[in-house]
């Protein structure tokens, strides 16, 4: 049967199902769309870089090859889509599905993205006009964006503007894929703007790309400002910040909102005050935009939780470190001051040497010269290795522990979801999202789900592993009750006299077993 069904599947169906059918969860349509989107963005970057003679002139060949490769990929994509059009439900009803596809807006955009390249081989185009036409490739992004926008509108039908904005910039059940794209867009702009800030410090690059860096910064600030305003506007949808003014103020004081503000504030301050104050130092705060990425990873959250939990221990070990530093600096001053008054001038100055020595950095710019000083340094350096390692070890252990706890919570959550024996799509996506946060691979989650399923099946059939019963009081309680019920059934259905004789034989049953039998037997009589 299976062979028969596979033999009837045509190559066209296979290509469509694997490469272009979004509804097929085992297909690669989404990945394919993502790679095409990346190529479109890369094309835009190439187009922008081509306008900079310092980059374009020495790399003309590379840009040309990149353009050809892009057009080849886009052409293959266009032809494949045309080929599989009869399989697409949208066009299959038409008498000429391929023609119907070719007339569709997406196909026209796809064609517009490649046509100028082919036309330029036959007609002499102005290079600038050709570049502008290459910008049409950007419209291909709509193939990815439009379905996401439709899905977002569907999910947010009848909801208020503020709720929609909240769903657009925060992951909620109403967010859909569009929110992922917004996140990706912001993450990319964080990376671009931070890279620009770093490259700006290279004098040779800054002198060539001064104007380009300024444009990039202005665009980044605009994007981050819009994001900040939208977050401030919609934060009241979060029950934690539900009141209009106080809620927004409360949100504005959260670390992540402060980071968002610091990412844009230097731009405005410098623009307003540059004639009065030299605020160029504020530009370094633009690097803080990197901290915006903490919103998209929970790793820092786990670290903060671990820090909070272990704070008393870390504080205690820091105190010991401090004592050791002061002791070492004082001894250093005591033994070395006379020999090197310029380097060990006083205890505060010796603290620098003490920290460098105890932390095993050892720059070597200051070192002891007296025999006693050297002996003391040897002892203190050995002690320092141990003491300075303590906070790092505590933090590492606490981080690991926190991660373990979070994973345990996820495990429990999975048990809860599978109480009905089924893991529906919403529950599955929640579990996978949580697993992603906890750096657990999809394969590991699949194994975990399978294990939980087996455990549940075993529990239902009464063969639950004892260690699992012991771990969970609720399960142990239910299991105990089940067993008692089972015993009652045995008592009520069996021959009382025969069983009584067997329980009375001390070689067959213990006293405790006999007592339980008698208790159940008397209960039966009642």
């Amino acid at each position, binding site marked *: 049967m299976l062979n028969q069904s596979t033999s009837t599947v045509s190559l066209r169906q296979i290509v469509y199902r694997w490469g272009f059918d979004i509804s097929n969860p085992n297909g690669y349509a989404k990945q394919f769309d993502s790679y095409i989107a990346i190529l479109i963005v890369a094309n835009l970057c190439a187009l922008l870089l081509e306008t900079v003679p310092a980059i374009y002139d020495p790399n003309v060949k590379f840009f040309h090859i990149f353009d050809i490769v892009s057009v080849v990929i886009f052409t293959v994509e266009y032809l494949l889509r045309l080929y599989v059009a009869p399989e697409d439900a949208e066009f299959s009803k038409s008498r000429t599905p391929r023609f119907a596809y070719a007339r569709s807006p997406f196909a026209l955009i796809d064609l517009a993205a490649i046509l100028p390249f082919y036309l330029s081989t036959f007609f002499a185009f102005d290079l600038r006009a050709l570049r502008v036409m290459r910008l049409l490739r950007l419209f291909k992004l709509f193939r990815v964006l439009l379905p996401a926008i439709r899905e977002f509108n569907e999910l947010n039908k009848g909801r208020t*503007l503020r709720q929609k904005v909240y769903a657009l910039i925060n992951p909620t059940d109403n967010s859909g894929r569009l929110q992922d794209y917004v996140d990706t867009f912001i993450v990319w702009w964080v990376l671009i703007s931070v890279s620009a800030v770093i490259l700006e410090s290279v004098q040779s690059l800054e002198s060539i790309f*001064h*104007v380009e860096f300024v444009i990039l910064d202005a665009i980044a600030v605009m994007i981050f*400002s819009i994001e900040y305003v939208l977050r401030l506007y919609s934060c009241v949808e979060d029950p934690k910040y539900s009141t209009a003014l106080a809620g927004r103020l409360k949100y504005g004081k959260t670390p992540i909102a402060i980071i968002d503000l610091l990412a844009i504030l230097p*731009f*405005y301050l410098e*623009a307003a005050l540059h004639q009065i*104050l*030299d605020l160029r130092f504020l530009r370094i705060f633009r690097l803080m935009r990197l901290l915006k990425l903490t919103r998209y990873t929970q790793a820092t959250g786990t670290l903060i939780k671990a820090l909070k939990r272990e704070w008393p221990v870390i504080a205690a070990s820091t105190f010991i470190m401090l004592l050791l530093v002061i002791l070492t600096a004082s001894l250093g001053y005591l033994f070395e001051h006379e020999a090197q008054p310029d380097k060990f001038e006083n205890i505060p100055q010796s603290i620098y040497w003490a920290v460098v020595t105890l932390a095993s950095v050892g720059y070597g710019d200051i070192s002891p010269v007296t025999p006693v000083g050297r002996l003391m340094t040897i002892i203190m350096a050995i002690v320092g290795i141990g003491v300075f390692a303590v906070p790092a070890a505590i933090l590492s252990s606490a981080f690991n522990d926190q991660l373990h706890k979070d994973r345990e919570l996820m495990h429990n959550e999975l048990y809860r979801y599978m109480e009905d024996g089924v893991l529906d799509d919403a529950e599955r996506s929640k579990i996978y999202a949580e697993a992603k946060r906890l750096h657990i691979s999809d394969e590991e989650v699949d194994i975990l789900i399978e294990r939980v399923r087996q455990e549940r099946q075993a529990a239902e059939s009464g063969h639950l592993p004892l260690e699992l019963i012991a771990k969970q009081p609720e399960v142990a309680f239910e299991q105990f009750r089940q067993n008692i019920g089972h015993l009652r059934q045995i008592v009520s259905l069996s021959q009382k006299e025969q069983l009584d004789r067997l329980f009375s034989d001390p070689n067959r049953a213990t006293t405790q077993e006999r007592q339980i039998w008698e208790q159940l037997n008397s209960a039966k009589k009642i």
Partner: protein
Amino acid sequence: MAYYSQNLLRDKLSSRLLAPHEKKQLSKEPDTRQVTKSDLLWIGVFFLIIATNFWLGGHNYLEARNVAETKSTAEKLTKWLAEARETSHSNRLTLGSCNDPASSWRDCRDELMANNGPIPNARNLLNPSGEFFADVCDRSNLSTLGSVVIEKGTPKPTDATQFIYAKMPSTQILSEKLPLKVFVCGRSFHPMVVGEIVF
């Protein structure tokens, strides 16, 4: 918009006609309107931010372009001054004052910007009311913003190959070799070094 007006009317009616306890109850109900007055205010803020960014971004862009152009002019000048020394005064011959050991830096400077000079009609692009050349990049003097500043170097006492640069007076006589540092007085009166040469 009609929907919004309808809601506004409902608000007004409710505030006038409803009993206090009914008003209280109404205020507890979640606002299900698509766009509220508060939303409109935030939309205003949103567009204000966009407009501000466009304005500031455009301003920064123009300023950056002017700085780049001023730096390019200053580079051209630096190259000319360096070559003038290397080519045994041949270039300077075309500029009398710059070739005359008895003339001052002010005279030479004026001729540099003359029609036959290397930077004809050069002007301060960042600050049209300011001069193209300034003696110092001085925050207290706003007109120096965007000017090209040329400082004179004197050898360090410890190392004669290194120079300490300081303000060159306009009356400086060009009879001796002059180590010069050229820079543009950029944004926030930050000196943007273009080059160091001997003239």
